[in-house]
């Protein structure tokens, strides 16, 4: 048996007095690909950072051992770590937007790594950088190397970061959520590329991700972490198909995979919302001409059912949602909300919204009770006593204890906050709830709970949802009808089964193929 490249045993990391990692262990053979999976706060990123000696702030390794090629680097000095980092252990960071220096040319940033490790003189490094960029799949690398980061798209920047990570031909590449900021189709390209490069170079890959499907797709071994501990480790297939630990079982069950298609009953055919031929043009500043953020969009939301709008960033789905909510005035077309008196106030009362970020959409200075009663106060519903009773009722409906009413948002977890946001949306008894990426910022298990909650509420209260999402798997598990958007236009729409099982448009098929883990689950 060959010596493992990286071996982490019983690692303990604390931030101040707060333990973040409490006994993590993993082992990586040369050329092997291992994925570390876990929810936020599980200590997966901290483990990766500890390996590189890059713990932020008050973070310290308090126990355990990290050995790289048999050498104990747990408490290695900065000098030794500097020699290792980049040269033998490469890193692909999470956010391609903030990890490149905005005022330095791309070529120079790649060359810098080479020069820093003494692999090339300044002059050679320049040519070498262009070669490396070409290898990273950048078209016209000679010209691209002279450009600045803002001239690159998110996917291209991530390619550059991968190129930098691999520039010195390290034996180990640590990729910390390398694609979570990217669209699914771009994510797929990047991961394919990463896989090919590491394979060609024989580099071992430590992939840190929250996405179980992605981990299973891309790694030989999967290590599942929860609350700072490794709960299960093993071959990818085995973890997904026959999970052993309770937490992994829940994680697998909660993953919005493509195989779970609960039957949808389509009782009524009474449209609540009708959007007909809606467009929105933005004049481009300085240049003349116009940007069509939404172009001739039409769809309906049936009573008691869910219509989902799916698309990648820039597809116009959020613009469409904002037009429905009356936050943006459409350039052309009509939006009809049935059963209202037609005034703006009436429309807004009948239509409430739940936003993506549960940390941003609740005023931090308000108590939960004040948050939930705000729409009631605005629309003048009830008096003080009846509102208070309504708060308890609503909290109960969204699965929160009425005792939470006096808490502030910063005392709640992400999932609890999103429940409060849903309770607030339900307060004025709307007919339509617009969920703008309402579950995208949540961890898989919490996401699953919130989706179930939305489903139950729909059944009990006969609500209709307009569900905006970039995640086809989530859409499948909640929607009745799907509208697929791209570049401001609707490319395909219809019942969820029809669109997702036998997509007519190639773009829809492309989106479906890009979902990580699809092949493993089916």
């Amino acid at each position, binding site marked *: 048996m060959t010596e493992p490249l990286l071996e982490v045993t019983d690692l303990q990391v604390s931030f101040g007095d707060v333990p973040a990692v409490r006994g993590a262990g993993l082992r990586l053979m040369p050329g092997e690909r291992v994925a570390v999976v876990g929810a936020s706060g599980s200590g997966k990123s901290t483990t990766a950072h500890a390996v590189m000696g890059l713990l932020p702030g008050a973070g310290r390794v308090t126990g355990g051992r990290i050995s790289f090629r048999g050498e104990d680097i747990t408490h290695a000095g900065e000098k030794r770590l500097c020699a290792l980092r980049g040269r033998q252990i490469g890193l692909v960071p999470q956010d391609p937007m903030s990890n490149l220096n905005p005022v330095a040319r791309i070529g120079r940033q790649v060359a810098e790594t080479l020069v820093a490790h003494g692999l090339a003189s300044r002059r050679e490094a320049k040519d070498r950088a262009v070669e490396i960029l070409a290898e990273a799949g950048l078209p016209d690398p000679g010209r691209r190397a002279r450009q600045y980061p803002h001239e690159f798209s998110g996917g291209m920047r991530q390619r550059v970061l991968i190129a930098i990570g691999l520039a010195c031909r390290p034996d180990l590449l640590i990729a910390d959520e390398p694609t979570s900021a990217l669209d699914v189709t771009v994510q797929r390209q990047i991961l394919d590329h990463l896989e090919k490069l590491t394979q060609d170079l024989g580099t071992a890959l430590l992939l840190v991700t929250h996405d179980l499907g992605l981990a299973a797709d891309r790694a030989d071994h999967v290590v599942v972490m929860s609350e700072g501990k490794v709960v299960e480790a093993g071959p990818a297939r085995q973890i997904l198909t026959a999970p052993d630990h309770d937490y992994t079982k829940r994680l697998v069950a909660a993953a919005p995979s493509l195989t779970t298609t609960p039957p949808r009953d389509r009782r009524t055919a009474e449209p609540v919302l009708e959007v007909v031929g809606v467009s929105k043009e933005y004049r481009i500043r300085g240049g003349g001409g116009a940007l069509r953020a939404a172009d001739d969009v039409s769809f309906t939301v049936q009573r008691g059912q869910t219509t989902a709008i799916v698309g990648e960033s820039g597809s116009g789905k959020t613009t469409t949602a904002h037009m429905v909510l009356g936050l943006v005035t459409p350039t052309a077309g009509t939006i009809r909300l049935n059963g209202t008196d037609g005034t703006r106030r009436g429309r807004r*009362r009948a239509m409430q919204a739940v936003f993506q970020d549960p940390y941003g959409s609740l005023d931090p200075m308000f108590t939960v009770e004040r948050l939930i009663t705000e729409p009631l106060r605005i629309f003048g519903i009830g008096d003080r006593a009846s509102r208070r009773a309504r708060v308890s009722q609503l909290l109960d409906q969204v699965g929160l204890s009425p005792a939470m009413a006096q808490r502030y948002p910063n005392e709640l977890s992400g999932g*609890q906050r999103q429940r409060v946001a849903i309770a607030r949306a339900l307060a004025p008894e709307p007919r339509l709830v617009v969920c703008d990426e309402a579950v995208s910022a949540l961890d898989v298990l919490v996401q699953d709970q919130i989706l179930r909650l939305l489903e139950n509420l729909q059944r009990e209260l006969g609500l209709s949802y307009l569900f905006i999402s970039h995640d086809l798997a989530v859409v499948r598990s909640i929607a009745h009808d799907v509208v697929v958007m791209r570049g401001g236009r609707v490319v395909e729409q219809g019942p969820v089964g029809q669109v997702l099982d036998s997509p007519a448009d190639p773009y829809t098929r492309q989106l479906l193929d890009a979902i990580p883990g699809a092949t493993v689950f089916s």
Partner: protein
Amino acid sequence: MTAVDPVAPVALGRVRGRVLRKLWHNPLGVVGGVLLLIVIVAGVFAPWLAPYPPSQVHFTTPFQQPFTVGFALGTDDLGRDVLSRVLHGTRASLEVGVLSVLLAVVVGVPLGLLAGYWRWLDAVVSRLADVMLAFPFLIVAVGLAAINGGGIGNAAIALGIANIPTMIRVVRAETLRLKESDFVLAAHTMDAGAGRILGGHVLPNALSAIIVQATVIMPSAVLGEAILSFLGLGIQPPDPSLGIMLSDAQQYLFRTVWPGVFPGIAIALICLGFNLFGDALRDALDPKTSHREGR
């Protein structure tokens, strides 16, 4: 429907408790707070703490050294007790400071809110603020005081007006930031009006920035009062003021330095107290340093 989140709620405590705790853990903040407390007690209780009325002259004992029997900090050219005058002068300084901060807040905050919220108004308000800022703060204050004449009230008004533009800027910037936040967007979808959004959402969230700015204005107003009085444009003799004391002492500097040293120290302590406390308050209120527990 009794699903429970796997993540237990993190008990972070109320915002106020956290801010106080952080202030307490900042040594400079504690020093500033203690200084501030001493200064405020001295100012508020000056009539009871001072051994003599501030303007009582003792022609038989001018230019006494500090720690003379009967005159703890000595006397000035007219034999007035320096300690009594410093205490009363501190009181006057704080009065002017508080009044001018109030004026800057009362005028600057609403203008800042409106300018941040409505673009067309922003053009008018911000340009006016820019014009005022083009003149150095003191020139504006001196000019206004010269037009209005001396006196404690006029000094406060002059300093208050001179500080309005910076307050407008701070509040406007906060409003611009908060206007784009998701919770304001959510309020829009609930059909909340401008009044509710500004008063209910933006103002409470901008409060910490306003408080910090007030602690910045306060020492500059105290300093401004001393300068105006020194120039004869602020508080008029024989009323005690730290600035007047400095101006009087300056004429007799070759005979004794002490009547000038103590008011100088008092001004320095007041400003230091407010600045240190203000800095610590800013750090404690900064959300960027307060999310560490959330990791």
